[in-house]
């Protein structure tokens, strides 16, 4: 079976790969949006935190024989803890300053973290095997569905939707949204805003690490794996606008799919297509697809 000269299984497998990439875009841009909402900091270190998730999973397996499923839980907790330290000891000092200092501080931080790991592991990829439970593929009749990739999409979408639910539908989320609008007023109501800020950053960091663990068996694990990803995620954030959680999720997934399709029909443009879309969105809707112009 063929569509526009491309075989159906080939098309479907690229689509799925696009969805996998899109899942990472969604989780990462979601974290960026939540952090930016409360801290007013664009977290350049998000790519490095993503990398930490993947590399720590690899390290746990290679040095201690700790398996994937344990790390899926432990890695986000560890990186979340690192997030607490980063927020408490570094970011806290710059909230009253111009936005750009937050970007520069987290950029420095990511260069530092990535440089440290690079000095130990170099730049070549570290292989990580797919967990046994998810090896192989399921025959759907029209295509072979690799189990692990299906799991990545499923797990990511679940986590994204859970985050959306917590922020939009629960009391905790209401505090968070109120804190985004007016932190001083929320503090006056007796909510401990500084702790909320710390936990928000830790949560965003944990999300990035979770994506990193999911990515370990699909991508090559390298100290620089988050570097190019974070720039694409910035473009995703510009396209979606940071005002809406659901917007971030949909934009991330959608762009992943478009990127996958580009790989099939015009592979040369697959690395630039997200940026081209960003340009088009800027021309038509400068505030972003889901953004509100302030």
């Amino acid at each position, binding site marked *: 079976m063929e569509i526009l000269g491309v075989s159906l299984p080939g098309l479907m497998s690229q689509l799925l790969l696009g969805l996998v990439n899109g899942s990472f875009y969604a989780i990462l841009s979601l974290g960026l949006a939540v952090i930016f909402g409360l801290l007013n900091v664009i977290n350049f270190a998000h790519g490095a935190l993503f990398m930490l998730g993947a590399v720590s999973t690899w390290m746990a397996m290679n040095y201690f024989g700790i398996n994937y499923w344990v790390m899926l839980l432990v890695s986000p907790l560890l990186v979340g803890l690192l997030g607490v330290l980063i927020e408490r000891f570094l970011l806290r000092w710059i909230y009253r300053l111009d936005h750009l200092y937050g970007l520069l501080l987290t950029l420095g931080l990511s260069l530092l973290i990535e440089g440290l790991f690079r000095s130990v592991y170099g730049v070549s990829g570290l292989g990580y095997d797919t967990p046994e439970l998810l090896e192989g593929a399921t025959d759907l009749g029209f295509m072979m569905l690799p189990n692990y990739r299906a799991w990545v999409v499923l797990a990511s979408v679940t986590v994204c939707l859970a985050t959306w639910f917590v922020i939009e539908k629960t009391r905790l989320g209401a505090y968070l949204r109120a804190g985004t609008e007016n932190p001083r007023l929320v503090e006056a109501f007796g909510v401990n805003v500084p702790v909320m800020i710390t936990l928000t950053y830790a949560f965003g960091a944990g999300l990035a690490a979770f994506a990193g663990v999911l990515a370990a068996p699909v991508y090559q694990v390298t100290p620089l794996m988050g570097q190019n990803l974070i*720039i694409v995620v910035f473009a995703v954030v510009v396209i979606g606008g940071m005002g809406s959680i659901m917007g971030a999720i949909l934009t991330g997934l959608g762009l992943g799919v478009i990127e996958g399709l580009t790989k099939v029909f015009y592979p040369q443009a697959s690395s630039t297509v997200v940026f081209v879309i960003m340009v088009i969105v800027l021309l038509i809707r400068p505030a972003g697809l889901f953004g509100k112009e302030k």
Partner: protein
Amino acid sequence: MNTKLLAKMGYGLLLLALIVAPFAGAYPVFVMKLMCFALFAAAFNLLLGYTGLLSFGHAAFLGTAAYITGYSMKFWGLSPELGMLAGTLGGALLGLLFGWLAIRRQGIYFSMITLALAQMVFFVCLQVPYTGGEDGLQGVPRGKLFGLIDLADDLTMYYVVLAIVVAAFLLIVRTVHSPFGQVLKAIKENEPRAISLGYDTTRFKLLAFVLSAALTGLAGSLKTVVLGFATLSDAHWTTSGHVVLMTLMGGLGTLSGPIVGSAVVVLIENKIGELGTFLGRITGFEWFNTLGESVTIVTGLIFVVCVLAFRRGIMGEINAWLARRKA
């Protein structure tokens, strides 16, 4: 002593030092590279320090101009002055495009858009056949300036670079002190107020962006002529991060800051390997020996320290100290 006089003496001494440097044992190619970076940082500072716009895409202007100059001189046999003119114009045009798109959004979005656009340019540079891909353009001849002055000699090249960089720096000084520069400052301090005073701030910002991109292009072109090659690393986003660091370290919004900052950053990066070897020897800790290959650790650390504790930068601190003494 009067601060202005002090500054004039400082610049005079620096110029004198640069003129005699090749005879005092400095390696001309290294100093030329330093001057190119200083020009790059000064052009960047015009935008960040004087207009308040943080562009994270300046590597694109540097890289594109370097490629245009390299390609036109190597394959079309353009003379160096035309090659550099082409590179500078290329930087300016790309700046016009970037600026036109990015100015639609404010603040942090502006930085993210410039970064994303520059990444796109990077991928284009990686893929198009004219740039030599991963290898870059090698073996660009220096040629003869105006068909008369042979630049193959390092010393001749050195004084040409010095003249161009000084001229470009004077242009920046003139711009900052012109009425146009004052409007830029007003935009930086309080954009809504500048708008209410009747200034079309979007146009001023765009003009500043194009000027900064053009001068960055000039720096890139000059670098290609001096070194004889243009590589992908010029267009990589880390180069944009680099120029931010140089400017921040020297002092945002000071004229001399970028010169000092670029010199300090380049020197640190050149000496870091030796420092690592030294630390490795005295502490017996193997890891320090690899420090030379992982410059980013040090760059990242400087970034963090500068943002947290040293935001005024070297020249900013000196200026503040002088002001305190006077008061």
